[in-house]
């Protein structure tokens, strides 16, 4: 709101407006939290979320901006001081907001809430709201501002400068670890969504030639016309979805696109290697544009669909699975709900974006609040929409889709009977009819979250637009949207990982660091693909569906990165002489430490073989047909989890030592900011 309009609005009127927002939010939250035995409308979640975000932004982020960070409207940002028209460009705050949101919004906030819905809608929703307002938004905002004050330095550079060499090293290893695990989990979600689905596989396969065509079109026919090219790509993708229906209904053609999980895993591994080694302009860039185009459009469409339909949530607020016996993944609501939903509440990965491109575009320090805090609120709203999409399904359908065959059995009748015995009635005939309506042969055991989200989204879309006749098209549109999204993350992540390995190996032998030297490109691409490919293979071979072991590992790795980011933030806040406000970053940091340590302990040592890696390995070893590979995988997962936790402990200890030194006066509190330069934009209104 501009200063002029503020003056026109009497203070009492503004107080009344905020009081109304607070009361409405409290009413909505009470309805969401306290309703038992009756289904509620999804709009209560939306109202609770919007009011919480409005209050968080207006009051909490303003408090942080004014008291903790003391944003300086007179201080020039690196975008102004180092303006070069390429990386450093002073940009309108709304444009930076859109750019930042497009970069942070990935498949995580869509998949995580769908998986966490097995506890009911309440735990996930409360964590998304509280986690975002007090954790994720704060992390993104604070890291963005600190990067702005350090010439746009990356998180790892800030960790090294402000905490120490060990902090920098841990941040580097954390980034590599999270990339490897993230890519494996993302690929597993795609495999589970596409296995035995000729329609989905055809559509996604078609996005590869479409992206290549876009690359050539953009380079030769219409140079620079990216929006036009993306719109053209979108039309072609829609045609591919439409054509997919014909493929699935023509048995001779359908067989070309019907693959098992392991076969799809191999195809994705080969694809990942090729995408990393091919020139950027040919595949990565056009796919990225196409994915962004589809992503922004679909998220807007989903928001409109929810508002238009105002669906009823069929999932109860809490299910019996809060006790840890859930079929989607095993583990108690604490800590596993907080590990499962990372993006949407707090995601360490965002710290990489907040200390990457965005700080180089911010025109004024004061705009960091809207971009950092505000964009994360928008992402959190996406997570709420994903939660709604999962919870509009009948719980029986939700569990039939998301439960692995190892838990509910292979046969439709057996699976339906097991799920009905849990108190969520479903029949094999209902599931068959649903599968027919979305153009699939079966929807059982489609673990990973993506198919359940797609069914929920198709339900919302088809009831708002087109009716049941378009259910199959909307379902495959949703699958295409998620898979495209995920494969883009896979392309970009493999390449980023490759560059990081090349940077590191360049210190050992210079030619390996040359990003244009093909032997190095091939070797490092193979290394990073082998890393995530191994975990992917492990996931597809896992009788429990893979998600049970890999998603918590991903959550732990992501929260580890958030821990690193919050350690850096707390250290800087203390060094700024603002120790009395350190709770702003230390609060979420302590929460994350509690969550990651508890989750890791359970994942490694829990005596329940469905939760603990070691007890599962012991159970397999004691069985009649001990599978050495599965036992090795469990032990490897345990080692990886322990390694992640050791890293958290190391950076915490190093940070705590630094805090104590500064607070006890043994070390001069000195932050490594770039010197103050007055801005030429000082005359502008904020």
């Amino acid at each position: 709101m501009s200063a002029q309009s503020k003056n026109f609005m009497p203070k009492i009127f503004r107080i009344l407006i905020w009081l109304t927002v607070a009361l409405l939010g409290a009413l909505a939250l009470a309805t969401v939290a306290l309703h038992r035995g009756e289904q509620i409308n999804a709009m209560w979640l939306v109202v609770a979320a919007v009011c919480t975000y409005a209050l968080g932004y207006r009051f909490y982020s303003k408090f942080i901006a004014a008291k903790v960070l003391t944003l300086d409207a007179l201080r020039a940002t690196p975008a102004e001081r180092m303006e070069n028209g390429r990386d450093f460009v002073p940009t309108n705050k709304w444009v930076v907001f859109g750019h930042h949101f497009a970069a942070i919004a990935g498949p995580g906030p869509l998949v995580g809430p769908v998986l966490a819905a097995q506890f009911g809608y309440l735990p996930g929703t409360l964590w998304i709201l509280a986690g975002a307002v007090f954790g994720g938004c704060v992390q993104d905002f604070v890291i963005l501002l600190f990067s702005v004050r350090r010439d746009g330095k990356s998180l790892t550079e800030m960790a090294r400068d402000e905490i120490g060499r060990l902090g920098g090293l841990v941040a580097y290893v954390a980034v590599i670890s999270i990339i490897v695990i993230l890519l494996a989990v993302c690929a597993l979600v795609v495999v589970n969504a596409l296995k035995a689905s000729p329609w989905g596989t055809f559509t996604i396969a078609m996005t590869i030639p479409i992206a290549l065509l876009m690359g050539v079109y953009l380079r030769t026919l219409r140079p620079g016309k990216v929006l036009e090219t993306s719109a053209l790509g979108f039309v072609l993708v829609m045609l591919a979805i439409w054509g997919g229906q014909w493929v699935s209904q023509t048995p001779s053609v359908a067989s070309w696109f019907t693959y098992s999980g392991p076969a799809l895993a191999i195809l994705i591994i080969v694809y990942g290697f090729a995408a990393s080694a091919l020139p950027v302009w040919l595949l990565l860039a056009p796919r990225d544009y196409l994915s962004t185009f589809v992503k922004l459009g679909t998220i807007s469409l989903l928001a409109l669909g929810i508002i238009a339909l105002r669906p009823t949530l069929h999932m109860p607020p809490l299910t019996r699975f809060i006790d840890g016996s859930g079929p989607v993944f095993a583990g108690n609501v604490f800590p596993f709900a907080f590990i499962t939903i990372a993006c949407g509440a707090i995601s360490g990965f965002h710290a990489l974006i907040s200390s990457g491109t965005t700080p180089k575009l911010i025109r004024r320090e004061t705009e960091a609040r809207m971009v950092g805090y505000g964009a994360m609120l928008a992402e959190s709203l996406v997570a709420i929409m994903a939660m709604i999409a999962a919870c509009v399904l009948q719980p029986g359908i939700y569990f039939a889709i998301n439960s692995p065959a190892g838990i509910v059995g292979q046969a439709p009748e057996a699976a339906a009977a097991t799920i009905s015995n849990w108190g969520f009635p479903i029949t094999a005939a209902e599931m068959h009819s649903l599968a027919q309506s979305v153009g699939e042969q079966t929807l059982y055991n489609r673990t990973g979250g993506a198919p359940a989200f797609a069914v929920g989204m198709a339900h919302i879309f088809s009831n708002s637009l087109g009716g049941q006749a378009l259910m199959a098209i909307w379902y495959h549109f949703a699958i295409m949207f998620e898979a495209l999204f995920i494969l883009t993350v896979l392309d970009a992540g493999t390449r980023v990982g490759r560059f990081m390995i090349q940077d590191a190996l360049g210190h050992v032998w210079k030619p390996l660091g040359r990003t244009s030297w093909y032997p190095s490109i091939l070797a490092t691409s193979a290394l990073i693909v082998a890393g995530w490919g191994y975990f992917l293979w492990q996931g597809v071979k896992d009788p429990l569906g893979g998600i049970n072991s890999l998603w918590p590992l991903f959550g732990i790795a992501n929260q580890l990165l958030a821990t690193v980011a919050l350690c850096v933030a707390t250290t800087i806040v203390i060094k700024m002489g603002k120790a009395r406000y350190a709770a702003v970053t230390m609060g979420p940091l302590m929460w994350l430490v509690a969550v990651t340590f508890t989750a890791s302990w359970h994942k490694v040592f829990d005596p329940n073989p469905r939760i603990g890696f070691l007890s599962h390995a012991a159970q397999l070893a004691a069985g009649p047909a001990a599978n050495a590979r599965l036992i090795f995988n469990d032990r490897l997962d345990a080692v990886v989890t322990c390694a992640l936790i050791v890293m958290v402990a190391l950076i915490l200890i190093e940070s705590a030592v630094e805090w104590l030194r500064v607070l006890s006066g043994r070390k001069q509190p000195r932050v490594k900011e770039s010197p103050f330069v007055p801005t030429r934009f000082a005359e502008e209104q904020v």
Partner: protein
Amino acid sequence: MKDTTSHVGTAAPGCPVEQSSTSLLPRKPFGQLKSCMEIFFATLHEIFDESAYARFLNQKQLVSSRAAYAAFRQENEAAKARRPKCC
């Protein structure tokens, strides 16, 4: 050549950045709607690198062509490839 300064937030190097139109009260009917649309399209141009290309052309004093776009891509390839996509 495309006028890069016409986009909100797309400043050619050395040129002063225009004052944000959103911070002013609209002087004409539909003024606010118009500025919202301008910002919306400016955001799309920025996200889809069209603004970056326009800045590149302006900086190098080039007109859009295959060769110019190839040069732009080459210059930006490393940055684009190193940009992580969030989960």
